[in-house]
Structure formats: C-alpha cells, structure tokens
C-alpha cells in the first residue's frame, strides 16, 4: 500500500499508509490531518482541500481538469503546484508522494 507524507505549513510531518483507490483528501480526513477541511466531501465544489504537489510528483498525477481549475480560482495562495486533494486518486505509482499543506483553507 502506498505511503503518503503530509507536510503541514509549520513543517510538521505525518506519514500515512494509504489505501489504493482512495483520494488524497479522503486519506487526510480519515487520518485527521489538520489543514484539510474538505467541506463538500470530495465533489470538487468547495476548494477547501487545497494542497501543493511538487514537480517530481506532478507528472505522475493526471493534470487538472476544468472543474478543478475553476475551483482553484477560489483558493488562497494558489501556485503552479496547487491541486485539490479530492481530485488525486492514490495508486501504487504514488508510493512516497509528498503533499504540502497551505497555512489555511479559504
């Protein structure tokens, strides 16, 4: 099962073993990772699971679709590394994935 590392804004690290097929948002919620709210429950409709995925991993994840792009417009501090965690499905290729969390969700 893939290992995922969540890094909070203050550099606190959480290493989690994730289930294949779950989304990064679900893994964060199930493991009470602070900093991800996921108010819409994973329907790409609220932008409160905003995370940053660095370059090394970005290529292993399908690119943002239009709905994600649109909702990211609502998030705070968006960069080229910004993703919505509910749109990232976990599989074995993501073993070792590093997910950085913003200071706050908006």
């Amino acid at each position, binding site marked *: 099962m893939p290992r995922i590392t969540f890094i909070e804004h203050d550099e606190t690290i959480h290493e989690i073993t994730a289930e294949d097929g779950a989304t990064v948002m679900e893994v964060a919620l199930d493991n009470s990772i602070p900093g991800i709210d996921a*108010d819409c*429950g994973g329907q790409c409709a609220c932008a409160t699971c905003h995370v940053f995925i660095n370059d090394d991993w970005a290529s292993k994840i399908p690119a943002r679709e239009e709905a994600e792009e649109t909702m990211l417009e*609502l998030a*705070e501090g968006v960069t080229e590394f910004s993703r919505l965690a509910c749109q990232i499905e976990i599989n074995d290729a993501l073993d070792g994935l590093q997910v950085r969390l913003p200071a706050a969700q*908006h």
Partner: protein
Amino acid sequence: MTDATTAMNPDDLNPDPYAIPLDQIRMNQSRLFQNNMHGEYFRRLRKEDPVHYCADSDVGPFWSITKFDDIVKIDSNHKQFSSEPAISIGNPSADFTTPMFIAMDPPKHDVQRKAANPGVAPARLADLEGLIRERAGKILDGLPIGEEFNWVDRVSIELTTQMLATLFDFPFEDRHLLTQWSDVTTNVDMFVSEEKIQERRASLRECLAYFTRLWHERANEPPKFDFISLLAHNPDTKDMINNPMELLGNLILLIVGGNDTTRNSISAGIVGLNQNPKEYDKLMADPTLIPNMVSEIIRWQTPLAYMRRTAKEDVEFQGKQIKKGDKVVMWYVSGNRDETKIENADELLIDRARARQHMSFGFGIHRCMGNRVGEMQVRIVWEEILKRFERVEMVSEPVRVNSSFVMGYSEVMVRIIPKDKK
C-alpha cells in the same frame, strides 16, 4: 436579494404538508418559514417529489431542488444554470436593478469577486481575531445580569455590525446605518406597498450616497484591505463608481452577506442549545467542541434558505424536463436536513462527525466568500460566553423573521447566569 417573497395570511397556512396536493405546494411563502412549518413540507418533497415544480406562485413558476446531492450538482454547474438575473425567486424590478457579483456569471463574476476577496482572506482574518475577541468581551461584559433582554439586539446585531464596519472601514459612530441598510434590503414588509417600496429605495440611495463619498476618499488614499479601498484601487473594478447601481448592488451584497447570516448564526446557537439542553451540557463539559459546534449551528440554522439559478438551456434532471429560462431554486435549508445524506439531520449535535460537510455556504464558484470570517465570529463569541456565563437561558419562544430567504430571528429573549453565582 432585490425582491419580495410572498406574504400570506398566517391563517391560510396548514402545518400538515399532506393536507395540500403536491402540485399546490408553494415553498416561497415566507410565513411557512416564519412559523417554522417549512421543515415538514420539505420532508414531504424530499420523499415524494425531490425535484418539484411549482406551476404558479406570485413570482411565477419555479423548480425546487430539495436533496443534498442534487443541490451540489446544480450549484457546481454554472454553465447550464446561470446566476443571472437574480439569486432570489423574484426578478429585479426593471426600474431599480442592482447588479451584484453573486448574481453574475463568469467572467464578470470572477473579476469582481476576486477584487473584494482579500478583505476576508485568511491572512486578513488572523489580523482581525484579537479585535473581534476584544469587542465580543466588551459586549458580553455590558449585558445586564438578572434581567431579561433580547440577545439579537444586544449581542448578535451589535457584534456583527461592528465587524461589518471594520470590513468596510466604515465610520464607527455611524455603524447602525449598516444594520438599517441590511434590514431594508431583505425585510419583506418593505415590499408590501408602493409607499414602502419607495421608502426602501430612498434608504438604499442614501447608502449609495454615503459609500460614494467614502469611495472618493479611499481612491485618493493608499490602498488598504477594506472592501471599498480594494474595489477602488483594483484596475478591474475602479470604474464601478461610474456605474452607481452596480456599486450599490455589490454594497448590498457585501452588507447583507456579512451581516444577516452571521447575526442569525449567533442567535441560532442560543436557540439551538436551549432547545437541546444535553448539547449545552456537552459544550460546558468540553469547550474544545466549539469549532465543530459552529459548523453544526450553521448547518442546523442554514442562515440563507436558498439560492436561485436560471436554466440556460433545456436540461433533463433526475427525470424532469427543466426548460431554458426556468427558475431553479436550490433549497439549502432542505438539503441540510436530507436524511439520506446526514444522519439524524433534524437534530443539533455539537459533536457531529464531519460537521463541516453542510451546504449553508453553497458550492461551486459562488460559494460563500466570507464563510471564514463568519465562522470566526461565532467561534469567538462562544469562547467568550463560556469564560463568563454558566448559562444563557432562553426564556420564551424565539420570534422568527418573515422571509423565505433569510432564516433569522428578530427576538431571542434570554437571562444570563454568570459563572460564579450559580
């Protein structure tokens, strides 16, 4: 937010939704909400006809979307469901139209929303927390002990009006004007006669005149984070001053959005905890529940009952044929009670799991922009209440406002019991 909802004789209301044929249910009757009868009506609709067509009402036909997941689908689909020309069931009057970004589609919506957004963004909130706490403390310390008073006036309105004045950097001594403008905007009684309608417009013109003066001052000062400075200095919105009705529309949006909703959530906490004394006990035993409780109160209350969309094309939705131009009303107040989505949805449970997953802020591109500042105010007021009072006791039934849009209270009579005197 620019038009009337039906006011009907309360004697005509039947508390039993099954006494009326399904096709004659009209959910835009404000008295249903004022008398707290709407819940049973929505329960019937969710069960028997979750995408319901009302063929005739005083504001014409409209669809009611009543289930949680259906509402998320429509709310996230701004391509087929427009927010123009209005997000309330009635259309704006042709001779008094106030465009505002909540009732606009992209790209114009995006530009205006983004210009105002830094006024309530996370960084700004961190700066405001201490100020809100100080003010909440001062308001609570000034409350009378041992006598009955209206919590709505003394606490809910006072705290949210002070906050709103700060978000606009509005002259503090004139802040009651903000409450007044907010109230004339949404109060159904302001639509009952031509005289009242003119009175309402006159009041809103005063609002525009006041803010026009502020705008010119701010435009000539260095940029700051209040809404007026943000709009006046942003290249995308600095010309809004030349379109007075659009400026007024956006002012109304920011005033009502930042006022009524938080005000009624603060009042709702008192109502909800008094109606559920076990929950009040839970809170007293474990104040760390406050943040979760805040979300639960906002779900339970659903400060704005609905948002309306208009179909941009024919759409088949859950087996129903929605036609181009049809009004589609997403009843958040019903989705938040959807028993197939939320367990024990009618109950206020302050330790509810995943309490944040409610729909009071809406979803999609029009999702509430000030949700964090609202949550923060409700959280801080409860943190400060718990420092001071053993109980805020509601002493009579609350009085609800006459609206199918704003779910609020005009009167919540209470008596407070301080911590050391129990």
